[in-house]
């Protein structure tokens, strides 16, 4: 049985003339220990899948099952012990007036964990920051360091599933490599399951064994990493994405 099972998920925002049908019947399943990627352009609904899964977007139709059990709405504390999310913008997702210590202690207090101090220090060590960062504020950190804090915050509850919404797209290339390596290592060490959303095919191909291409709130197709690398796609849309991600190609007709 798959760890995450999403069946015919529908998400509708607004009503009447402002109705936006963001997801139109999206299904996917992710096995335990697997890393699953979702790619698509802006507005394709890729982030909405993650947000709906963790209760940040309204589920209008379909089912979300974790470990074979349908999730409750609102999600209970046990859900967040198992599923955590890392957001795109490390500048916006940390409270500017909370120290790193407070950011990391809060989930521990909510879920009634013991040895909080030791856990905070351990979490900082694991993401490669160290204890020295404990009493700093987010503005004293660089973008890459902030994203490490966001990852530490997600990991501190020892979840099984981490939902990653464009975790590196706000970072420089060299910092992106560091954060991707960190995510890879943590998955190995802890047997985590990832669902990673990105617009960058190369990042998804590097991180995920299987992926899904989305457009206009629908699934275009599902591929394995090997199929993507072999360009074995049946859909024009995926092919266009692949061509576009290889950089600019000059129209031969315009060559002088």
């Amino acid at each position, binding site marked *: 049985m798959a760890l995450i099972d999403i069946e015919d998920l529908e998400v509708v925002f607004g009503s009447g003339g402002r109705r936006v049908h963001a997801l139109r019947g999206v299904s996917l399943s992710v096995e335990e220990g697997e890393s699953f990627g979702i790619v698509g352009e802006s507005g394709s609904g890729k982030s909405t899948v993650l947000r709906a899964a963790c209760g940040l977007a309204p589920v209008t139709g379909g089912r979300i099952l974790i470990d074979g059990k349908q999730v409750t709405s609102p999600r209970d504390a046990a859900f967040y012990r198992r599923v955590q999310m890392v957001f795109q913008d490390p500048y916006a997702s940390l409270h500017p007036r909370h120290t790193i210590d407070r950011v990391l202690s809060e989930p521990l207090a909510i879920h009634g964990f013991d040895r909080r101090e030791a856990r905070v220090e351990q979490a900082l060590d694991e993401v490669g920051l160290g204890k020295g960062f404990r009493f700093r504020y987010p503005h004293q950190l660089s973008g890459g360091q902030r994203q490490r804090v966001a990852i530490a915050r997600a990991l501190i509850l020892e979840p099984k599933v981490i939902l990653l919404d464009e975790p590196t797209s706000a970072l420089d290339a*060299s910092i992106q490599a560091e954060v991707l390596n960190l995510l890879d290592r943590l998955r190995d060490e802890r047997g985590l399951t990832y669902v990673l959303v990105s617009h960058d095919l190369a990042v998804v191909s*590097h991180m995920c064994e299987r992926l899904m291409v989305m457009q206009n709130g629908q699934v275009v197709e599902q591929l394995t990493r090997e199929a*993507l690398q072999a360009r074995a796609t049946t859909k024009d849309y995926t092919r266009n994405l692949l061509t576009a991600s*290889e950089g600019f190609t000059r129209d031969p007709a315009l060559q002088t």
Partner: protein
Amino acid sequence: MSPLLSVENLRIAFPSRQGPVEVVRGVSFELGRERLGIVGESGSGKSQTGRAILGLTPVSGKATADLLEFDGIDLRDATPAKWRSLRGARMSMVMQDPKFSLNPVMTIGKQLMEAVKLHGGKSEARDKSLAMLEAVQIRDPERVMAAYPHELSGGMGQRAMIAMMLVTEPDLLIADEPTSALDVTVQIEVLRILDRLVSERGMGLIFISHDLELVSTFCDRVLVMYAGRVVEELDAAKMSEAQHPYTRGLIGCLPKINGDVRPLPVLARDAAWLE
């Protein structure tokens, strides 16, 4: 042919509590009618370099250069009136994000025509603007002219901004991350438009970006910046022969669709690169 733009020993400093901090430290280059790429990571000074050429260094900063010459005009001590006659008419800049760079309470048409009217051509302003929107491949220019920026998608807004910058037919265009906020497929379309305009109108283009791969496929020549200095200048086609360890590191740390290097090589910064 003399170059369109010459920059020699450009330095930009901002005050701080520890005294002035130089964010651009002696950048020199020449630009003809070609596509020049400037790449670097955030904080490398690439955007400040572009802004200084247009005299848009923030007031707290101070830009100095041994030579800053555009088509024979010395820009270092240009008067505000001189700048007004140059900016928009002969040199202009496309910014990164159309959401923040267009006036939100003016229609696209009004903003476009403002540029034309300022630089002569009152009567044909409307026709010129419509033609320009068509040139950037906006299918329904009449509708876009009447639209406010929030009514357009990111790709449309970016095209409208490019139209606005090009309607006066400048000789030099500085594009600061013009496609970073766009989806990959739209990004290629916008680049194609820029590319055509450069080759048809013989414009000089400075393309500032963090995306090494994109720059190497789009530009003719590339300057790689690190900590306010140009560490390497390359032919775009010869990116794979880069010598400087920083450039090589930047290329190496990108994940590739076909590659499976794990862990990814990370960039080990060397203090010697600062010199």
